């Protein structure tokens, strides 16, 4: 593999020293491979968080429902997905449960497992957010003639939204890191690519170091975007 030269970035002698290191060459000639892996990780995370948010909201509402059946289903769901490791869930769904219903590739299995897992955490975030809205708000909305679901949609959820944003961004960052676990079912995301490169080059420090850098850039970017959104919400 040819190495893309960047001597202008380092100066000629430093460049020579660096290219004498095998691990550096491995990373330098595979940077596009890492970036692609980062994009797959990002796709996986965005899809899972989006699906997890929709499902999580439904489960949160189910859990707060007066119908015992609905609320106990939600409780069992949340308990199961928060009480067992994501790594185990990923293998359970990919090899165990999903093959009964669909012929899902690793990526789809990964998205499904991560979404279902994320939904459990989102449900608890949403429930906490809704319950943090002052009880008087619901009473006021009801006294204005709204029914329960109208009050929820137009009064409670918009206020809960503000409270929920910071922990939701946190969940996004957590899930981005947790998607590394789907490497066990051969999704070509960042960690899996690191594993493949490392398994043939044995350059542990360089390969895993590079993987860390890409993860860090992604999580830092999301955290900064989160700060920006929080600031905007605060001034509104």
């Amino acid at each position: 593999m040819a190495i893309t030269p960047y001597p202008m970035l380092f100066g000629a002698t430093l460049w020579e020293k660096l290219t004498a290191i095998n691990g550096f060459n491995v990373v330098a000639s595979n940077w596009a491979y890492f970036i692609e892996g980062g994009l797959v990780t990002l796709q996986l995370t965005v899809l899972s968080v989006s699906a997890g948010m929709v499902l999580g909201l439904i489960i949160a509402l189910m859990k707060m429902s007066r119908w015992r059946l609905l609320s106990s289903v939600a409780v069992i769901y949340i308990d199961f997905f928060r009480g067992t490791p994501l790594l185990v869930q990923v293998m359970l769904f990919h090899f165990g449960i999903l093959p009964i219903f669909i012929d899902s590739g690793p990526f789809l299995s990964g998205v499904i497992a991560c979404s279902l897992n994320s939904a459990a955490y989102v449900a608890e975030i949403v429930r906490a957010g809704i319950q943090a809205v002052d009880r008087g708000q619901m009473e006021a909305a009801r006294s204005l003639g709204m029914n329960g679901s109208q009050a929820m949609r137009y009064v409670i959820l918009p206020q809960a939204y503000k409270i929920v944003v910071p922990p939701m961004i946190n969940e996004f960052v957590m899930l981005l890191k947790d998607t590394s676990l789907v490497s066990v079912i051969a999704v070509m995301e960042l960690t899996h690519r690191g594993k493949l490169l490392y398994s043939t080059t044995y350059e542990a420090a360089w390969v895993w170091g590079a993987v860390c850098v890409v993860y860090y850039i992604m999580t830092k970017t999301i955290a900064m975007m989160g700060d920006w959104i929080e600031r905007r919400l605060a001034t509104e």
Partner: protein
Amino acid sequence: MKKHLKLLLVAMLVFSLAAVGGCAQKEPAPQPGAQTPAPAKVLNVGTQATYPPFEFVDKASGDFIGFDMDLIRAIGKVQGYEVKIQSMGFDALIPSLQADKVDVTISAQSITEDRLKAIDFSDPYFKGGLIVAVRADNTTINKYDDLAGKKLAAEVGTIGAAASEKLKEKDPKTQVRIFDGIGEAFMELEKGGAEGVINDWAVTDYYMQTDGKDKIKVVGEIFQADDQYGIGIKKGDAETLQMINEGLAKLKTSGEFDQIYKKWFSE
């Protein structure tokens, strides 16, 4: 409520202490009536114990068993070493040697040019080679070349994975899914996520006779048949290399090697 919590915490503490104590007690117990003085030297061995019949965990006892395990224990015995085996990912074996985490690795590792750049190998001890496995009902794939353009599953860092990747040169549509262990690759094959698995013949053979019975079959001839397994040693560690080779030679002359071989491979 608080009382219960306290009680629970105390109970947990007691249990964990008991568990640790239980383990600690087992370790130093000297074997009564051992003829040889307790071997002072320890040989730390790395393996990936998910590769029957070479190295795997005995379902009943939880011990590491298999051809490689018997072999390295026998080498330790004739050379006066206490063998301590630890299981890890196959892709972690070579880096563990390089980082001095283990002294040797024995894990059905083929002696390849690429690996020789990173580590040294003992004299070869097993004739390897690759074979193609497909689902038992498959009739279209009959040899290695038929796999071009298909979905394959393999284990990370193996020569089977390399041979799978190589098919991409023939047909870029070839997809290779790499798993941490060969068990997952076979599962992917059985559930329909892959159409073929390229792997070491002895392992695929064993799987076909055990867990994969009636689910998978092998097709075509063994290829890369000049492949040989070696025991991995840190690059430049001549002392350990010589010790292992000596032990291997002793076992071969005494006939013990053949006994171990016959125990695991009937033909």
